[in-house]
Each structure stands twice: as structure tokens, then as C-alpha cells.
């Protein structure tokens, strides 16, 4: 029966584990191979298609660059780097520089990545679903003039509505602030005849998409970390593909929401970084576009209603790490007259704020020792020491246990066939003698919040980026010593990691030297099952987390060895 139960348990665990892996992992193409942008080429291709299929255009481009300017314009400051398309002034790629790290190596993390013909910041005239880009409207190449004034990039162009001779002036203006993670993107559309702007049949003048891909570490899309979210006025709501807003929409995979008051920013988030886009206070419709999610193409953004003659919209964009002290700076930002943007809400509290407290302590230790690996080890030792007064007493009683042995044997003989009475009488004996070999349920329970807090903290800690320790190059990633060029399915193993193996070895060792483990057959079996499960669960998480667990195991071993030696001393004294 015992074996049966173990078997059932193993099956349940396997199903849960494989289920989690399948649920969270999207087996999409590698982002790196996909993200090569060749804007000019795609534009050309696009215009070819247009001229073949729709011969008659309603708009005419009034400004056309003679040559296609394929190279991107670069904006760079201490914290961010943007690649902006010279063709149409849209963001092709955005990076966050590692200046937020204590030991920065002048590395940059790609935050949003466009795709051919789908830039990160994409403007369409008309609604998002039916709207068109300028090249689609005019059937020609898209071209803008570029003017750089101080910290402003001004892209502008003109198109003419052939039917009513209405000339539209379109401006996209970037305003940067030196050494900040935030910038402003303005859209200005004006026409000279005071008529309603009409680019498609909808009442939307323009739509601005933000996406399509955020993947700072080049890893596969993982539902657990990678998502869109928006601040609905009260709290942050995650919008994934299964959100009711997206699922119950009239257009499959396309969620919409009218701004009713409190709604503010939309963000594209991954494990460590966020790209937040915050609109001005005008009326917008929010959209979340998961239509082409199969191609790893996601957009979220805003639709702006049409106006007569003149239209101006401002969007404030934060790109940077999810570190509260950095994001909080932009909750109120004087340079752009921003108030109560609630940007910092994008950083979630780890285990009810308990994990954040641990984070503060860990950063404090780091400041002293200047190494995150060492800081994690010190914090682990501190946690263990904090819990040790609780376990010390049970170690003490371990010594006295020897005296009780004859009495215990007597009881065991007496109640051989009545295990319940035996248990009761054993406990009563302990009570009478003031000895108890058990640590108690409360200390065990107390460890749980600590472990969960550390798990949530170390799993998403940006500060670990690029922090090396011993052979580990980056504590925020698995310590992949050898990268395979294949992935073992279901368990999602694509590299050889040493630290998880060390972790499992220490765990097995620590349970091997547990005295009461050998008695129970089932427990013995589980002793091997548990580390195995932990091995797969911890294989792909950040090595900082695995390091924590390994050190905890080693400390458990030391504690157990101390216990055993105390016991031995007692026996030796007796002899």
C-alpha cells in the first residue's frame, strides 16, 4: 500500500511538473535569429505589393526622399539607447544600459525589439485593425525630414488627401532628458482645411502600437515573466492571451478597453525590465493585440479619436529595470510635469513585501562585501542562525535521549500491537522527562515564508545581472557551462548546469545523515524522489537562487553533523 501511494504521488508530481513546463513555455523560434531588422528592405517590399494590388490611392505623399535611408538614428545617454528608423521615425529597438548596476560593464540589454515591418513603436493612421501606414496610404515610400534641435528629434512629413485636397502635416517628436530612463514621444497631426481627419472609416485618427517583443535575456517567451500589463487606476492588471478582455472580444485575440478615468500606463514586462508607455490625459481606447501571437508578435497601445484641424498627443515612455528605487523617480517627474504616474507599481511586491525586505538586507550586505555570491551566502547563514535558537533546544534534548532508551523499549514491548497508545505513551514519557527529540511544527512552518520570500526575490532580482561568483558568470541566469544546441522537451533542459547538480548532491547527503529517515521505507524512497524533483524544478532558475538553496543544504548538513557528534560525545562519556 505504501509503495502504491508513493507511485501515485510520483505520477501526480510528474504530471504537475510537465504541465507547468508546457503551460509556461511557448516553443517559439529563437528571438535572436528573428530580430534582425532591415527596415528599408521591408518598406520596399511593402510598396511593391501596394502598387500591384491597389492601383488607385486616396493619398499622395508630398515629401519623398530621393534615396532610401536605411541606417537607423541612434539616441544614447547614460541609461538608455534607442535605434530610431530614419525612414519613418519609429523605434526599431530600445536598449537599457547596465548603468544601474554597481559594477557595470558597459553592456546593454535589448528591451523592445521590432520585427521587419513591425517596429517597436508603430504608428498607424486610422484604427489599429484597419489603419494604414503612410506607405500603405500613398502607395509610395515613407519618408520624413529629420530635424535635431537640442534634445529633440523632430520627424515630419506631409500627405495630401486627393479627394478633397486636404494637406496633412504629420510630426513625430522625441524629447529626451539627459541621463534619464524616460523620454517623451509626441504625435502631431494637423490639416489646413479644418476638416475632420479621416484615414479609414472609423472614428480613430491614429493608433500607436507598442511591442512587439521584449526579451532582455534572449530566452524563450515564458508566460510566467513575459507579459503586458496596465494600470487600471487601482491596481496593475496583467493582460495575457487568456485574459477575459482578450478572450471575450469580438475580434479573436484583440482586446479593447475605453478609457473611463483612472486607466494610465501600459507596460511590456519581462522578468527584469519594463517598457512602460504612459499617455497624456486625453481620451484613448486601450488595445491589446494578441492576434499574431503565433509569430511571437504582440502589441498593445492606444487609439486616439479623430479631431478637426489639429491633434496633439504625448506619450511618456520609461524603459529600464524593475527596481523600485529607480522607477519611483518617475512617479513625479518635473521635467515633463508628470504627477502620480504610478510607474513604480510595475515592480511587484515579492511575497507580501517580505522578499523586498530580504532584498534590502541583501543589498546592504553586498555594499560591504562587493560580491553578490558572497552576499547570498552570508544572508543564508544569517537566516540559519536566526532559526538556530529554535533548533538548538532539540539538539540539547538529543543528548538526554540516550537515558530514555530503556524506558522507550519497555513501552514498545508493552504496546506492540497498539501503535496509537504507543504513540501517546511515548509522548507522555517525553513530557514527564522534559525531553523531546522533535523540533516542533512551528519552526518548520516559520521556514516556509523565508524560503518563499527568498525564492521570489532571487528569481527576479535585476541586480544579479552580470554578477559573477566562482565559475558562475551571471547569478541571474543558470550557470550553463556547456550550451547544447538542442532542448530536451518537457523538462526544458538546453544546457549543462553544474550548480543544480551540486545542490541535489548536498540535499541527498543531508537527508542521508538524518537519523530517523532510515526507519520508514516510504520516507526512504521519497528521500531520493524529492531531490530529483528539486533538480528539475531548479534546473533553469537563476543560479543565485540555486546557490541559496545549496548553501542552506550545506548548513543543514553541518547542523546535523554537530548534532551527531554531540550524541557521540555523550555515548563516549558513558563508556
Amino acid at each position, binding site marked *: 500500500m505504501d509503495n502504491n*501511494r508513493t507511485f501515485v*504521488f510520483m505520477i*501526480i508530481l510528474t504530471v504537475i511538473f510537465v504541465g507547468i513546463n508546457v503551460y509556461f513555455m511557448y516553443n517559439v523560434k529563437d528571438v535572436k535569429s528573428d530580430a534582425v531588422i532591415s527596415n528599408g528592405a521591408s518598406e520596399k517590399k511593402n510598396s511593391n505589393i501596394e502598387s500591384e494590388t491597389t492601383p488607385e490611392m486616396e493619398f499622395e505623399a508630398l515629401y519623398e526622399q530621393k534615396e532610401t535611408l536605411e541606417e537607423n538614428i541612434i539616441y544614447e545617454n547614460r541609461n538608455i539607447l534607442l535605434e530610431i528608423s530614419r525612414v519613418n521615425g519609429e523605434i526599431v529597438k530600445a536598449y537599457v544600459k547596465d548603468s544601474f548596476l554597481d559594477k557595470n560593464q558597459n553592456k546593454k540589454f535589448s528591451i523592445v525589439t521590432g520585427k521587419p515591418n513591425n517596429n517597436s513603436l508603430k504608428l498607424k493612421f486610422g484604427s489599429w485593425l484597419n489603419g494604414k501606414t503612410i506607405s500603405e496610404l500613398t502607395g509610395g515610400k515613407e519618408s520624413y525630414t529629420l530635424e535635431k534641435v537640442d534634445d529633440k528629434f523632430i520627424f515630419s512629413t506631409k500627405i495630401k488627401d486627393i479627394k478633397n485636397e486636404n494637406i496633412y502635416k504629420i510630426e513625430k517628436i522625441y524629447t529626451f532628458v539627459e541621463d534619464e530612463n524616460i523620454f517623451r514621444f509626441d504625435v502631431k497631426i494637423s490639416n489646413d482645411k479644418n476638416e475632420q481627419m479621416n484615414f479609414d472609416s472609423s472614428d480613430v485618427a491614429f493608433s500607436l502600437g507598442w511591442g512587439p517583443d521584449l526579451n532582455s535575456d534572449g530566452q524563450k517567451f515564458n508566460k510566467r515573466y513575459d507579459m503586458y500589463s496596465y494600470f487600471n487606476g487601482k491596481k496593475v492588471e496583467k493582460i495575457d492571451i487568456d485574459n477575459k478582455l482578450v478572450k471575450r472580444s469580438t475580434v479573436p485575440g484583440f482586446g479593447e478597453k475605453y478609457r473611463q478615468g483612472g486607466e494610465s500606463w501600459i507596460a511590456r514586462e519581462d522578468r527584469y525590465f519594463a517598457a512602460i508607455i504612459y499617455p497624456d490625459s486625453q481620451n484613448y481606447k486601450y488595445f491589446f493585440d494578441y492576434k499574431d501571437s503565433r509569430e511571437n508578435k504582440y502589441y498593445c497601445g492606444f487609439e486616439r479619436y479623430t479631431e478637426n484641424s489639429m491633434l496633439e498627443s504625448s506619450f511618456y515612455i520609461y524603459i529600464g529595470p524593475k527596481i523600485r528605487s529607480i522607477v519611483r523617480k518617475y512617479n513625479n517627474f518635473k521635467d515633463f510635469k508628470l504627477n502620480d504616474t504610478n510607474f513604480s507599481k510595475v515592480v511587484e511586491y515579492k511575497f507580501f513585501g517580505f522578499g523586498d525586505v530580504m532584498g534590502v538586507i541583501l543589498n546592504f550586505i553586498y555594499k560591504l562585501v562587493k560580491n553578490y555570491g558572497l552576499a547570498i551566502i552570508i544572508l543564508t547563514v544569517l537566516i540559519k542562525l536566526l532559526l538556530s535558537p*529554535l*533548533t*538548538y*533546544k*532539540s539538539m540539547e534534548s538529543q543528548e538526554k535521549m540516550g537515558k530514555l532508551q530503556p524506558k522507550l523499549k519497555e513501552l514498545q514491548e508493552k504496546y506492540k500491537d497498539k501503535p496509537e497508545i504507543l*504513540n*501517546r505513551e*511515548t*509522548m*507522555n514519557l*517525553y*513530557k*514527564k522527562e*522534559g525531553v*523531546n527529540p*522533535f*523540533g*516542533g*511544527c*512551528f*519552526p*518548520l*512552518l516559520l521556514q516556509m515564508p523565508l524560503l518563499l520570500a527568498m525564492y521570489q526575490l532571487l528569481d527576479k532580482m535585476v541586480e544579479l545581472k552580470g554578477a559573477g561568483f566562482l565559475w558562475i558568470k551571471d547569478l541571474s541566469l543558470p550557470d550553463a557551462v556547456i550550451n547544447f544546441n538542442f532542448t530536451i522537451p518537457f523538462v526544458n533542459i538546453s544546457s549543462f548546469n553544474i550548480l543544480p547538480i551540486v545542490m541535489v548532491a548536498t540535499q541527498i547527503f543531508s537527508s542521508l545523515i*538524518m537519523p*530517523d*529517515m532510515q526507519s*520508514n521505507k*516510504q*520516507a526512504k524512497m*521519497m528521500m531520493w524522489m*524529492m531531490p530529483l524533483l528539486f533538480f528539475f524544478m531548479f534546473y533553469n532558475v537563476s543560479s543565485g537562487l540555486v546557490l541559496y538553496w545549496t548553501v542552506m543544504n550545506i548548513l543543514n548538513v553541518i547542523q546535523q553533523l554537530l548534532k551527531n557528534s554531540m550524541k557521540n560525545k555523550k555515548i563516549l562519556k558513558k563508556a
Partner: protein
Amino acid sequence: MLFLNKIVILFINIYKKFISPLFVSSCRFYPSCSEYARQAFVKYNFFKAFFYTLYRLIRCGPWSKGGYDPLERHWRDDGQ
């Protein structure tokens, strides 16, 4: 019995059957904390049972002597 109690009892049973055997036994009492909790949730309403369980868990540490500690010892049969 409350529906809520039934759910809690289900979780306790799952814990007792599958999770508890994984760890070194640690309870200083008889019956163990989980059995105590199960009995409490069978016998009393949710809030009482929760409170009694919490009280027991807090006692289950090196600061107490442990021993035989049935539900009836502290709480009278004022259940349903």
C-alpha cells in the same frame, strides 16, 4: 459542516498522505498538529477550528514540553 471546512480537511488529508512523509517528523505532540487540525475542522466551525489550530501550532515548538494533547483537553465540546 461548512463547505469551507470540507476544503480545508481535503487539503489536510492530502498533506498527511503525500507531503508529510517527505519530511522528518517534527511534531512534539500526540496527536500531531495536522491530525489535531483535521479533528478541529471536523468538529467546530471554520473560525473556531482555525483559531484552535493556530493556538496549537504556536505551542508546537521547543518552548513547550509537548506530549499527549488531544483536542478535548483545551476545548469543551461546544461545537455544532
